[in-house]
């Protein structure tokens, strides 16, 4: 459990982050433990302010100025991210991990065309992308999807460029555009060639979110952090975007950390789900296991509070008593104990560890520490 294996794309251990505010030190993350396997979709669920986004931002090193990392480690593909140099961090953001944000309306630069914003990602560091671009175009020619004239001469020209390891600037830009079109195609945007010339204000919310997803795919990242990507969209578009994500993960080999407060979205898409509460991961399990057999009292309360339309005899959804704790003065011991229906005398004193209660089912609760040997 302690060693990072090659199969783990992301391993967060004991991550503690606090924010300095006028009111005091907000202890936002209190020892987050999270492990992601390669190729899986891990859902990170929890209510607002429980530290989901802070966890994601610390993976890419984008915490705001007033944040302070108190300890812990974040291994991204086996490399420690905390304390990485600025240059290395930029390269990691460019090649390993991509983040898709909440609100598609504001995350595109309003005065640049979609095309220039996508090709910019490629042309910013030509040395990283030249080979990828040439191979992509050669693949296209090989597949025979393009039937325009002069393909043979283009192929030999590109193969020569690949050998020299050097592509002219004009040629690079042309291939970048070709690549951008195919990336837009992969997110099912209609008429990608036209979209390249459009500006963000000409696109609808769903189209913009697709463009943002496309941008995150441009660099073929190994890990995508999807931070509440459906929250700002209306329900029908949400469904389309979720469908797209599901299709994409079958097409390309990528791990996705899906951050959401919508349990239905998590149930729809994820392989495993991690539940967060007040800066702690309280339960991690396979998605079916978690919904069928929740162990942590918070998860039980969370699932019970989801309104259901399909069960007519179900009791009124039960809200969890009390409110989210003030993280400037968090509760001692288990942070959930003031609201927990099953709390006992040890809960305020001992901070529970994340332990394996059932095979593959991790829970951080003293009830299960008592039971397990």
């Amino acid at each position, binding site marked *: 459990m302690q060693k990072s294996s090659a199969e783990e794309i992301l391993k967060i251990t004991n991550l503690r982050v606090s924010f300095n505010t006028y009111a005091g030190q907000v202890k936002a993350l209190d020892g987050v433990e999270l492990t992601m396997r390669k190729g899986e979709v891990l859902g990170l669920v929890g209510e607002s302010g429980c530290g989901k986004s802070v966890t994601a931002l610390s993976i890419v090193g984008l915490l705001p100025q007033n944040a302070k990392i108190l300890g812990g480690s974040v291994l991204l593909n086996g490399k420690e991210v905390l304390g990485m140099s600025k240059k290395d961090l930029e390269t990691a953001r460019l090649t390993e991990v991509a*983040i898709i944000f909440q609100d598609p309306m504001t995350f595109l630069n309003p005065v640049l065309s979609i095309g220039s914003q996508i090709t910019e990602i490629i042309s910013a560091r030509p040395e990283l992308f030249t080979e990828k671009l040439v191979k992509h175009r050669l693949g296209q020619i090989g597949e025979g999807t393009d039937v325009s004239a002069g393909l043979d001469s283009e192929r030999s020209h590109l193969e020569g460029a690949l050998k020299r390891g050097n592509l002219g600037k004009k040629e690079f830009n042309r291939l970048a555009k070709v690549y951008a079109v195919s990336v837009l195609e992969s997110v099912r945007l209609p008429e990608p060639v036209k979209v390249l010339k459009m500006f963000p204000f000409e696109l609808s919310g769903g189209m913009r979110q697709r463009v943002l997803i496309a941008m995150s795919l441009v660099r073929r990242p190994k890990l995508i952090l999807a931070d509440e990507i459906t929250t700002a969209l209306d329900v029908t578009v949400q469904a389309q975007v979720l469908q797209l994500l599901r299709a994409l993960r079958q097409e390309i080999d990528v791990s996705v950390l899906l951050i959401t407060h919508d349990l239905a979205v998590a149930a729809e898409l994820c392989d495993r789900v991690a539940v967060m509460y007040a800066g702690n991961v309280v339960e991690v399990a396979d998605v079916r296991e978690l919904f069928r057999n929740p162990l942590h009292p918070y998860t039980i309360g969370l699932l019970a509070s989801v309104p259901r339309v399909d069960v007519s005899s179900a009791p009124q959804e039960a809200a969890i008593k009390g409110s989210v704790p003030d993280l400037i003065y968090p509760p001692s011991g288990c942070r959930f104990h003031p609201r927990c229906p099953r709390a006992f005398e040890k809960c305020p004193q001992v901070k529970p560890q994340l332990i394996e209660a059932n095979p593959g089912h991790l829970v951080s609760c003293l009830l299960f520490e008592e039971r397990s040997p």
Partner: protein
Amino acid sequence: MSRSESSDGGRRDATGREADLRYALHLLKGNRLVLVGLFLSAATILLVLLSHLLVDPNLANQQPLALRLCWNNPIINWNIANVKTCPSQLPLGTDAYGRNLLQMIILAIPIDMQIAFEVVASAIVIGVVFGGLAGYAGGFVDEVILRITDVFLAIPGILLAIVLIVVLGRSLPTLTLAILITWWPYYVRLMRSQILSEKEKPYVERLRAMGAGGPRILYLHIVRNAIYPILVQATLDVGSVILTVSALTFIGLTPNPLLPELGNLASQGIANIFTAPWLILFPGLTILLISLGFNLLGDGIRDVFDPKLRR
């Protein structure tokens, strides 16, 4: 799956930018003053481009003294004693050296406009580079750049320009330089304030998350969003610079008394204001019209073409 979006996208593509342009024109139509500004500044620029075709620049150096301070215009009559009548028709009369005043004004416009453009363009560049740096980097860099602008802003502009011209010697480049030195701090401060609000926008966070470096984010993305108020200011300032240049040459800081420059032409008029009022009137009117034109145009650009003020 994306049927509805496809038709939506098609509609927007067909009419989006056209509708935008039409809306801009609609705004223009509703605003007579902008049209006046547009007309005046277009006429000015046209004169700048054509002046050397219309008038031989060498005429500025000839002094047909026999013709000095004469007037012959059938439409305008000055009821002043001692107005000499020119032998042939000269619409705006002659100046103290006997040169055709209309020709001199046509030669003067490009000289003033050149200074104005040089000053404004350099101020934009300095503003974008240093204002951008101050706003984006913040902290110590911001503090240093702002304090330097404070030093320049603390000295009255015209006074500083006079001192600089006297020290550096009278010539057109020193005139330009002197005005630029009093002008750039405003652009740095304006740019900085724009950057401060722009750099908190979400797309900047996205760029950072995508691994873009500071200079790329600042100069390729933020500046492009923050430049509109600077362009408006620059258009307004073309008129103001012309006013300043003419003020400086009017009080005698001209490189050459024969230089056809609006302030310089007008300054000849002081000595002859009772005998040849056209000499101060027409160069003065030209200054007024040019700076009025660019001011109205600047206001219009602000109202019509800044997409962020409209949405």
